[in-house]
């Protein structure tokens, strides 16, 4: 039995809000609206699967150390898996993003879903960039040398030092993945809570409008 005092608790507010907006039936559905039947819908899950591969191979690399992949065939293979996962991730995410744009997927109070998705895209570019900086090979030497001018030119370089291998490595394996992971989680939960946006003309009949 709950009392009026308990109703004021933050935890009960959170529980009620969660149950109202994202019940388990929405979180783990076993049906989809009939209009969700196009190859374009596969790019969202493909992006998530690629992100999973990036994290798994990234963890593999991080357990062995930053220089491992230069000296071990297994390490080079792990690095190659990480490299190609990133390439797939961006291809899938860009197609997903374009698809959502042409579907005007922000309709029906789904603005925050679009914003978190676009934010994840921009954040992923920053995360991938730090990855290219910590390859510890000629490419990363050159990228850090060139990129410093861009960041320095607007003052960001005063704190974000692309030539500082230690700082870039820590940001790449700790801070940025956590941010991307959280944004992605919020994005996916929003998709589940709000549902997949219906076709643009789906309610023309109800509204007495022509297509």
């Amino acid at each position, binding site marked *: 039995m709950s009392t009026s005092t308990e109703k004021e608790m933050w935890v009960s507010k959170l529980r009620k809000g969660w149950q109202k907006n994202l019940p388990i039936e929405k979180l783990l559905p076993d049906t989809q609206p009939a209009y*969700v039947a196009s190859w374009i819908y596969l790019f969202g899950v493909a992006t998530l699967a690629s992100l999973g591969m990036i994290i798994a191979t990234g963890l593999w690399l991080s357990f062995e150390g930053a220089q491992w992949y230069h000296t071990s065939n297994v390490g080079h293979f792990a690095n190659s898996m990480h*490299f190609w996962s990133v390439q797939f991730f961006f291809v899938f995410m860009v197609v997903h993003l374009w698809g959502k744009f042409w579907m*005007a997927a922000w309709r029906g109070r789904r603005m925050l879903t679009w914003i978190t998705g676009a934010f994840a895209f921009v954040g992923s570019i920053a995360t991938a960039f730090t990855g290219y900086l910590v390859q510890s*090979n000629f490419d990363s*030497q050159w990228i850090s040398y060139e990129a410093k001018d861009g960041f320095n030119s*607007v003052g960001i370089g*005063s704190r974000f030092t692309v030539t500082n291998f230690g700082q870039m490595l820590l940001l790449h394996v700790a801070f940025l993945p956590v941010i991307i992971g959280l944004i992605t989680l919020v994005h996916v939960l929003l998709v589940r809570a709000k549902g997949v946006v219906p076709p*643009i003309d789906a309610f*023309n009949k109800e509204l007495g409008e022509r297509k």
Partner: protein
Amino acid sequence: MSDRRAELEAAHWGGRTRRYDLIKEGVVAVVIIAILVGALATLFGSPDEKQVTFKEWAVAAPADFYATSVQELAGSSGTAGYGAPYNKASDGINLGPLYLAKLLGVTHPVDTVNDFVITPLTTVSNAAPVADALKTWQASDAKSKATWATNYDNALTKVNQDQAKVPAGNYGPVPELAAGLLTMAQAGSLDGALLSQGNYFQTDNTKQTLFLGDGTYFNDKSTASNLQGSTWGMMNETGRYPGQAWLWLYSFWYQIPPFNNGDSHPFGANADAWIMVIMGVLSFSLILMPMIPIVNRLPYKIKIHRLVWKNYYQEENL
């Protein structure tokens, strides 16, 4: 758009549905991606062109390394004249009246004379001429040091970096110091000394990278690998591998006027800052795209969505 339409679009879908296994879809996607990634990793590997070391530079292009060392002593190198965040030698790049780097100050101090030449030389046992030159340098006043280094830098430039053709002059210990640093680099002991700067733990490669970039060897190598900004290098990778293709728009601005002309003011000369601003604005525009008039109506005008929902429209006779 009417509020009623927004309400309908936001409401739980009450129309036809179909069976959907979220978990199965996710597992199948992970398995397929893992197979694809594993296949590409096995077939093509990944880029890993060996890093440039100071030993490589000093052995492959000793004249360039020697001349760059002299420039570091004379204060005429790119790093010595860079400005914030490394030093106060110049105002740096500006956005109109805003000199943002200068405003935020020197947060990563780099003294090319001591950090790049003198301190590394003090970490090893030097032969007599170099040891004597080091003592002379350290015992001299700033004015003498500047005169010697500038005289020798100018003389070396006049003879196109050919050390043997430099005429006699008032150079103090500068030639011996540069020769000592060249010997140290060729022996492979400069890389560690530049990084550690006399310490044990160190993970900041800024000083090494800046010194490397002051010479022409590093730049020439990047040109050969198509990595220069003027040739879309930002999105290229060494070898025949895809690079950061998602940076195409960032790289694009460097290819067009006025940003591709470093001599044009105010935009070309300050291209790095202006392009950073442009990309910042475009990134925010992407995030806030649904709120941008005209752009947010494009999906309604260009009906690509009818391809996405082709079956639904046919079935519903829409």
